[in-house]
């Protein structure tokens, strides 16, 4: 607990350079992997790299890492809502033909 000082955490510059380097490495890996056909794992690898990069940006560049618990809830709820959007949309695409008949 930082007491009443909900002050802005000042991270050392070196940390930002480190995160930036990690993001650049991620981009490079994405490009390199694109030259190999990994079959079903193409999307898995690409999305894993992309999600990791997004996580770094949210945690460090957007300062959520040092945010209050309320900030964590707010940030997390955005992703939960994204999951709702993907999940319920897939509940259509992945279940076509599960139940006989058509609603047309």
């Amino acid at each position: 607990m930082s007491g009443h000082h909900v002050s802005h955490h000042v991270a050392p510059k070196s940390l930002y350079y480190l995160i930036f380097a990690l993001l650049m490495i991620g981009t490079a890996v994405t490009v390199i992997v694109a030259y190999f056909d990994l079959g079903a794992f193409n999307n898995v690898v690409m999305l894993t790299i992309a999600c990791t990069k997004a996580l770094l940006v949210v945690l460090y560049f957007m300062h959520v890492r040092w945010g209050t618990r309320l900030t964590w809830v707010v940030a997390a709820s955005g992703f939960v809502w994204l999951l709702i959007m993907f999940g319920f949309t897939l509940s259509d695409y992945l279940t076509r033909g599960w139940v006989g008949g058509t609603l047309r």
Partner: protein
Amino acid sequence: MDTLNYINNGHGLASWLLTKDHKRIALLYLVSITFFFFLGGLFAFMIRLELLTPAGDVLTAENYNKMFTMHGVVMVFFFLIPSIPAVLGNFLIPIMIGAKDLAFPRLNLISWYIYVLGGIFTLVAALSGGVDTGWTFYTPYSTAAANSHVITAALGVFITGFSSILTGLNFIVTIHRMRAPGLTWFRLPLFVWAHYATSLVMILGTPVIAITVLLVAAERVLHMGIFDPALGGDPVLFQHLFWFYSHPAVYIMILPAMGVISEIVQAFARKNVFGYSFIAFSSLAIAIIGFLVWGHHIFVAGQSVYAGMLFSIISYIVAVPSAIKVFNWTATIYRGSISLDSPMLYAFGFLGLFTIGGLTGLFLAAMGLDIHMHDTYFVVAHFHYIMVGGAIMGYLGGLHYWWPKITGKLYSEPAAKLAAGLVFIGFNLTFFPQFLVGYLGMPRRYHMYPPEFQVFNVMSTLGATILSVGYLLPMFYFVHSIFRGKPSPADPWGAKGLEWEVPSPPPTENFAVTPIVTHGTHQYAPSKEVGVV
């Protein structure tokens, strides 16, 4: 000599256009939103005029399509969604929680400018020939076929969305951080709870519609294959993304109206609201569950039957928190000391009309019935009962209730009662026949229809004429009250709440001294909490 208040504190156009006072910004919204309301009403008038006769004799099919499209776009994005939050919410939330302004006053002003910019885009689209896709911008028609100003209108929707997001953000931060000492969450007025829930929907949903209409523009211009099957896209994906926002958007419209009704019902029944926490939490429940029901718009669009069942069941569930509110308001009125002033007339109107709108929604959430009723006038009637019978009734009720506070003037009560009566009669005459003609099979969005449906359409057009008189009347007595109305005391209704403890109109800083709250803000009767003290 007038005392200094937010209206006479600063003169000239610049003092309004550059103001950071939430109350003045609310009035900026009031003027611009009223403009769009009557513009949308003009389009509606053209629709009703065309449908007076079975033949397509007033408008061509193309122009008729443009009329209902622009009616929908203007009313949904530029009137209904901002109406109560941007006008009444902006004005009242800081005062209701004992604050001097919203958390981000500059952001609040920018929100209004963004709204106006979005409005200008839409006006340009309308004036340069209009849009004909329907307010839903359904693909692939909107991206591949429509020969109208889709991109301009879509950009208007995209831009105004940011106004909505920023307003929601401002409200959430304000409610979290700026409550007066002692004003705990469960002492907040229910109006504030409703706006908190609304703001959540605005923030979590609006980005999706913004990106979706941007994708429509991208597909139209760059021929990226996202929604158009000819380019490898999927039109049902557009409908998923569109309704992911646009169904919750209905709750952006109705939740603030519910907040208004909670206030009015307490004030004019002179009773503490029945089941405070149930009403407060049902707002949150509606905001959350409202995000899980969008598939009921696309039962017949090719969605899987399994997903249809899922969305159908959840759509039934979302009716529960709405019903909780209706029952609790009714219980509040029960054995209350009721006075039938004009705001209460609107509240009664809301109760009946919203209930009809909600229950007919359950017809449409049933997959079997929906196959028969989809895209008929039954749907049109249903959502107008929610949006006009619910949201606009709430807006007008709130405007009448807080008008003396906003302007410091009293309006003519007999004229207001007459208007409320005309709105109620006109509304029902317009839209109830549409349930019948829709059930009989009249499809929406055509400028011609078989002659046997004419009697219903004549009733509808007659009702719309009465309704428009009911909507125009307040323009006259409200404006009249500004110049000739009697000055209003701080609390003309004998109502409770911090907003009634400050002068009418309030001073710029709202409170000379930040109030210290020791009990619920709407205490009409002693509670256990007070008894202990």
